[in-house]
């Protein structure tokens, strides 16, 4: 059953076994697993349920519909744009469907240095396999690579660097290129398409347009959630109190930490929201003689991993892939204004865009503002800025190797490069300095917030146990990207689906005991 917030006509109290906050990869999976296990599940989602017919492919229409704060959520100092979903399905509705498992070296690092137990590669493998099967994960065929991705591949191969095909979870993809604005062809195997309907079919209840105000607890046990049913304009209207002995928090690393702060959860070791990682990234633009038309086709289908080594302490922490944008996104990224900017936009069809994403060590913080919204603090460190610069130099070399006439780093001031030798050897650091990633030097975007309620068996260094259950509050489980103890260095959807799939077994057990 689905209950829309605007249809709630008066305050109400709901009783259930488990309440799930959020319906993205973590919440959707938990909701489905719990419903299948026979639990009486109620899920709440702040945004609406959208279907393919809502996806108009228009940037100005879809950004406010699909993204938190209309797609304009920023860190407090305005240096990083932080993307997050706000509809049923969460970020799985607007993501680019990239599918990668958690790397074994990352899992080993968690076990050895963060006291994480029971989450090694052998333990997680069955869940990875099950998730990949359910979501129809497959390698993107080489024939489906658009020119932007073919140019990346050409450059990587010309340089003799490491690269390869990416995998995705799409069925019936029309290659329209509008993934980040929601799929009008329902080709994404996303949470609201695959998991939420399965949970509803098993008797789960979903409150949409209903915002969690705080987690109810008595200091040692979770008691439920106090939420507000929103009206058609998104304003809180009626209170919905959901009493449940088990609460699953899966509102994303930003939303979950903010709600945890608002709920005054026990935090004796001041760990809550203190270890934010973002995977910040920036663009590098190549201008080609022939049209690239990067706006069409599957946006990301090839990767360069030459500069990505996920072993702890590595000095290669940057992932290079493609990152094309539709006109508004491109216009905001390209430098200048007026006639100068116009000249750049005229080259729209002829530009290829790569992104350099940092597997970040920078630690940010998430807390709640006085008005209840997230306060995100994140200032990229010098070491991560140097990694970003490394990635931008690599991107520039790839683009030149693929035949670009010139390359642009859209920093302030912009770096325009027409001589390939300027990004090779010793000159490269002069051309693209290590400081390029420091706050406000270049537009940074982050779509992978994580690590704000990290897991581990040491309560002085983590917020939840390795089972996902809160150290101090029994019955509260966290099942989203918040629980990663570190940055993971790759797209997080499969890791989140998988951890939620795996850890839901503990939630089911707890629900049975309750």
């Amino acid at each position, binding site marked *: 059953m689905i209950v829309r917030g605007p249809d709630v006509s008066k305050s109400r109290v709901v009783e259930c076994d488990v309440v799930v906050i959020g319906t993205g990869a973590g919440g959707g999976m938990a909701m489905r697993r719990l419903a299948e296990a026979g639990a009486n599940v109620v899920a709440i989602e702040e945004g609406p349920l959208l279907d393919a017919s809502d*996806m108009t492919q*228009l940037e100005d229409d879809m950004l406010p519909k699909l993204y938190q704060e209309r797609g304009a959520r920023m860190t407090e*100092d305005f240096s990083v744009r932080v993307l997050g979903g706000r509809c049923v399905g969460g970020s799985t509705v607007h993501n680019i469907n990239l599918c990668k498992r958690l790397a074994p070296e990352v899992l080993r690092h968690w076990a050895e240095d963060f006291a994480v137990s029971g989450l090694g590669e052998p333990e997680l493998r069955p869940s990875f396999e099950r998730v990949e099967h359910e979501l129809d994960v497959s390698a993107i065929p080489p024939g489906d690579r658009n020119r932007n991705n073919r140019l990346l591949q050409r450059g990587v191969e010309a340089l003799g660097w490491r690269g390869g095909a990416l995998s995705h979870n799409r069925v019936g993809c029309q290659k329209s290129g509008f993934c980040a604005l929601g799929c009008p062809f329902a080709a994404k195997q996303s949470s609201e398409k695959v998991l939420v309907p399965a949970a509803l079919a098993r008797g789960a209840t979903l409150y949409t347009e209903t915002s969690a105000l705080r987690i109810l607890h008595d200091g040692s046990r979770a008691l439920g959630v106090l939420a507000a049913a929103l009206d058609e304009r998104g304003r809180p209207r009626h209170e919905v109190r959901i009493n449940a002995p088990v609460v699953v928090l899966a509102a994303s690393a930003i939303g979950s930490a903010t709600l945890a702060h608002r709920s005054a959860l026990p935090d004796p070791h001041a760990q809550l929201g203190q270890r934010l990682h973002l995977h910040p990234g920036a663009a590098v633009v190549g201008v080609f003689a022939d049209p690239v038309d990067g706006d069409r086709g599957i946006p990301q289908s090839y990767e360069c991993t030459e500069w990505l080594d996920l072993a702890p302490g590595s000095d290669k922490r940057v992932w290079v892939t493609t990152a094309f944008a539709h*006109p508004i996104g491109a216009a*905001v990224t390209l430098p200048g204004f*007026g006639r100068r900017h116009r000249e750049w936009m005229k080259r*729209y069809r002829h530009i290829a865009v790569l992104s350099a994403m940092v597997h970040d060590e920078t630690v940010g913080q998430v807390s709640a503002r006085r008005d209840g919204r997230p306060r995100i*603090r994140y*200032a990229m460190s010098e070491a991560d800025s140097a990694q970003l610069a490394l990635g931008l130099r690599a991107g520039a070399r790839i683009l030149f190797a693929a035949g670009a006439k010139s390359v642009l780093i859209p920093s302030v001031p912009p770096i325009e490069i027409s001589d390939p030798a300027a990004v090779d050897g010793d000159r490269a650091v002069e051309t693209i300095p290590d400081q390029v990633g420091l706050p406000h030097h270049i537009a940074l975007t982050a779509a992978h917030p994580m690590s704000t309620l990290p897991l581990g068996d040491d309560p002085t260094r983590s917020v939840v146990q390795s089972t996902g259950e809160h150290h101090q509050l029994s019955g509260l489980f966290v099942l989203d990207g918040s629980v990663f103890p570190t940055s993971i260095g790759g797209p997080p959807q499969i890791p989140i689906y998988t951890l939620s799939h795996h850890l839901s077994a503990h939630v089911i057990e707890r629900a049975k005991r309750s």
Partner: protein
Amino acid sequence: MAPVLDRSRRRFLGWAGLGTLGLAAAIGAVRSTGYELHPETLARLRVLSAWQYVVMHAIGRRMLEPETADVAAFADEYLSGLPELERTELVKLIAFIEHVAPLWHGHLRRFTDLDDDEQDTVLETLEHSAIAQLRAGFAAIKAMSMMAYYRLPRAWEAIGYRGPVSPRSLK
């Protein structure tokens, strides 16, 4: 928390903005009169006042030249959907550009009273300012201007963007 971040853009605009606005007022650059707006346009505004609308229109004109779009009306609608904090900050920034930024170039006139080249110089100074918060503010104003124009099919045509592929997207 990190002291550098505690000097947020809000504190900057609170301190520097108020201080220089006070200076501007003292030398007569701040006037809230002289901004004319058609009553029908004024009646439609949700967030911006008449003078803020006029300033945003002037900024948008320079941002998009030689193209045009109703940046001020778009900004008013866009701002109405933002949380109050961000809305207030952007409105403060509009005031800053109108009354304070021209002083840096020795202009004792408001932004809207400057000629095109002088306005461009003021905006370029913000774009490349050594003060990170001003660069961020410029980026926000630029983003609103670009959004107002590049959402239009005529803008897509001009750059060769083919637009949505599903017929229902243009219904």
